[in-house]
C-alpha cells in the first residue's frame, strides 16, 4: 500500500507513476518487496526494478540477510526504519542514508506496528522526490479509500510525524553480504512435475519439513519474555503457539526467537502470567 500511496503522491504532483508489489504470496507480516516508478512522462516498462534511485527498508533486520543496495544507482539514497543514526548503519557501501524510528511512530499514532505510512514521510524528507503534502494526499487516497477516512488521516499523520523526526546523513559501509543463495535447478535437476522431495542443495535443505530454513523471527516487533519462576509447565503456550517455536524442556519452556513472529498469544494465554511481551 505504501508503494501505491507514493505513486499516488507523485501523481498528485502532476507526474506519472506506477507501483506494484512483487506478486508474492506471503501472509501478513512476512517480508515483502514493492516497487514505485516515478517520471514526468508515461512509463511503459512493466518489469521489476533492478536499479533503484532510492531504497526504503521497513525492517532493519533485513540488512543482515539482504543486500538492500544491490543495483542502487550512484548518488542514490537509502531510507531505513531504525532507532539508530545514519552513521551507525552499514549497508555495505558509502551512501546517503536517512533513518527514522517508524515503528515507534506507528505505535504512537496507529497503535499498531504498521510502518508503511510513516516511512513515506521519511522518504519525502530524505529525497524530496515528493513533498510531504503530496505524501499525505497519497496516503489519504490509498489508505483512506480502502480503510476509511479516519484510518487514512491517522496514517497521514504518522507520515508527517516521521517526516519531522527523520535524520538524514551519510553512512560508510563495509559489510559484505554473501550473495543470496537460492536453489535454482536447471531443467535436468528440477524433479519431474516439481515434486517436493528431500534434497540437500548448496542453498540448504528443500522438500518436506524444509520450511525450517525460513527463519521467521525477523517478522516480530515484540517478543515474549519468559519467567521460569512463575511457569507451572501447563503446556498451554506450547499448544497455542502458531509457530511451534516454544519447546518443552525438563523444567522450563524455551522460546526460539529465530522463529517467533511475536504474535503475543503465549503471553495472552499463560494462566500463570509467566510471559510478557516486550519490544
Amino acid at each position, binding site marked *: 500500500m505504501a508503494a501505491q500511496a507514493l505513486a499516488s503522491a507523485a501523481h498528485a504532483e502532476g507526474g506519472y507513476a506506477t507501483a506494484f508489489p512483487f506478486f508474492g504470496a506471503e501472509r501478513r507480516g512476512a517480508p515483502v518487496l514493492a516497487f514505485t516508478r516515478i517520471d514526468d512522462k508515461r512509463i511503459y516498462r512493466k518489469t521489476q526494478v533492478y536499479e533503484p534511485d532510492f531504497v526504503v527498508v521497513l525492517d532493519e533486520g533485513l540488512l543482515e540477510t539482504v543486500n538492500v543496495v544491490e543495483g542502487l544507482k550512484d548518488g542514490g539514497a537509502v531510507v531505513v526504519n531504525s532507532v539508530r543514526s545514519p552513521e551507525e548503519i552499514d549497508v555495505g557501501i558509502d551512501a546517503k542514508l536517512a533513518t527514522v524510528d517508524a515503528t515507534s511512530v506507528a505505535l504512537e499514532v496507529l497503535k499498531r506496528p504498521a510502518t508503511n505510512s510513516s516511512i513515506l514521510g521519511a522518504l519525502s524528507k530524505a529525497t524530496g522526490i515528493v513533498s510531504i503534502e503530496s505524501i499525505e494526499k497519497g496516503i489519504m487516497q490509498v489508505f483512506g479509500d480502502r480503510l476509511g477516512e479516519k484510518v487514512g488521516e491517522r496514517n497521514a499523520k504518522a507520515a508527517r510525524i516521521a517526516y519531522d523526526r527523520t535524520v538524514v546523513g551519510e553512512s560508510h559501509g563495509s559489510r559484505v553480504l554473501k550473495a543470496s543463495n*537460492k536453489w535454482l535447478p536447471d531443467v535436468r535437476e528440477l524433479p*519431474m*512435475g516439481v*515434486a*517436493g522431495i528431500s534434497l540437500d542443495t548448496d542453498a540448504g535443505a528443500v*522438500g*518436506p519439513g524444509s520450511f525450517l530454513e525460513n527463519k521467521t523471527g525477523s517478522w516480530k516487533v515484540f517478543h515474549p519474555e519468559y519467567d521460569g519462576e512463575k511457569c507451572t509447565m501447563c503446556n498451554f503456550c506450547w499448544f497455542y503457539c502458531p509457530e511451534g517455536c516454544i519447546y518443552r524442556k525438563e523444567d522450563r519452556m524455551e522460546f526460539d526467537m529465530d522463529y517467533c513472529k511475536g504474535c503475543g498469544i503465549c503471553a495472552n494465554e499463560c494462566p500463570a502470567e509467566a510471559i510478557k511481551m516486550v519490544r
Partner: protein
Amino acid sequence: MVSKICTGNYAAAYGSMRSRARTVAAYPITPQTFIVEHISEFINNGEMDCEYIEVESEHTAMSACVSASASGVRTFTATSSQGLALMHEILPIASGMRLPVVMAVVNRSIASPINIWVEHNDIMPERDSGWIQVFCDNNQEVQDMILQAYRIAEGKRVALPVAVCLDAFILSHTVEPVDLIEQDAADKYVPEFSPTGAILDPDDVAAVGVFTPPDYMMECRWQTDKAMRNAVEAIGEANEVFAKQFGRDHGGMIDPYMVDDAEAVLVTMGTASSTAHEVVDEMRAKGKKVGLVKLRFWRPYPSELLRAIAEKVKAVGVFDRAVSYGIGGPSYIEFRNAVFGLDLPVMNFIGGLGGRDVSLQDVRFMYEKLLEAARTGVVKRDITWMGTRGVEQ
C-alpha cells in the same frame, strides 16, 4: 485370441481391464455410458481387480484419477463432451504432475445447442492441456490403443496422460469384429505399473502439487514440453512392439494410405478416415491419384511427417469435425502451420458437426475439389462448410 463382435465402448472397457487399471473413477454420460457399465460388470463378475469409484461428477472422476495416480496406481477413466468440459480444470494438472492417467474420450458435440452426436469440438479446447491425444477409426484400434496408451504414458521419458478418442455412436455404439487380447498377452505388452516420478507414499515422504513461484516455472514447463516431444519416439516404439506381438500395425503418429504418388491428399481424424479409405480405393480404381492421411495423434502433432508428405503432392485438403469460430477447422490451422512456406494449395472442409453424417458422396466431393486445385494450383475457397444449407459449396 478371441474375435468378438463388440462396440467401441466395450473395446475401451475391455482394454482397460486387460491393461490392469487398478483404480477407475468415471461418471456416466451418453454416449460413453456403456464403458462405465462394462467396467462395473467386469469388476462385479470378479474378472477385473480394480477399485471402481462411483463418483458424483466428472470433475471428481478426474480429480480422483489424478490423486490415485499420484499415489502410485494405474488409473483409467472415460468421458465425453460436457463431462470432458467439466474435467477441463483438472486435465492440465494431470499432465503438469506428469501422471500417466489414461482416458477414453467418446467425442460428442458440445452444447449449446445440446446434442449428443459425434463431433470433435469437445476435445479441441483440451489441445493445450498437455494430454497426448490419439484418434481411432475402428473398434479394434480402440482396444489396442488403450493398451498402447499405457505403454506410451508410463516411464520417465514421457510420463504424460493419454486420451484415446473414439467417435460417438459411429464407434461407441457400433459393433464390429474385434480381436480381444488375452490377459497373458496383454501382461507381456503392458509392463507392471511402476511409477516414475515421486509419488505419495507414507513410507517415502514427498509432496506432489506444491504452490510454485516464478523461479521454477519455466524449467517445469520446458520439461513437460520436452516430454511431449519425447512421446513421438515412444509412440513409434509402442506401435512397433505391438505390431510384432499382435500382428497389427496401426501406423504410429499417422497412417498414410496411397500417398506415395498421390496428387491430392485428404487429412482426416477419427472415423471419417475409415470412410475416406473406401473412397480412395474407388477413385484409384478410376485412375484418380488420390491419397489419404489418417491423422492419428493430435498431440504430439506430427508436423514433420505431414510436411514430408505435403512436399510431394499437389493439393491437400483437411477435413475437420470441429470448428474454431472465426478462423476455421483446428486441424486445418495446425496443418497450415506444419506446411508453412510451401507453395501448396490447402483447403479446409468442415463437416459432420453434431452427428451430421459424413457420406461417401461427401468424401468424393472433397477429393474432386482437391483434384481441381491440384490441376489448377488455385484454391477457390479456403474453407468449405460441407452440405450446409444456404452456404456456397
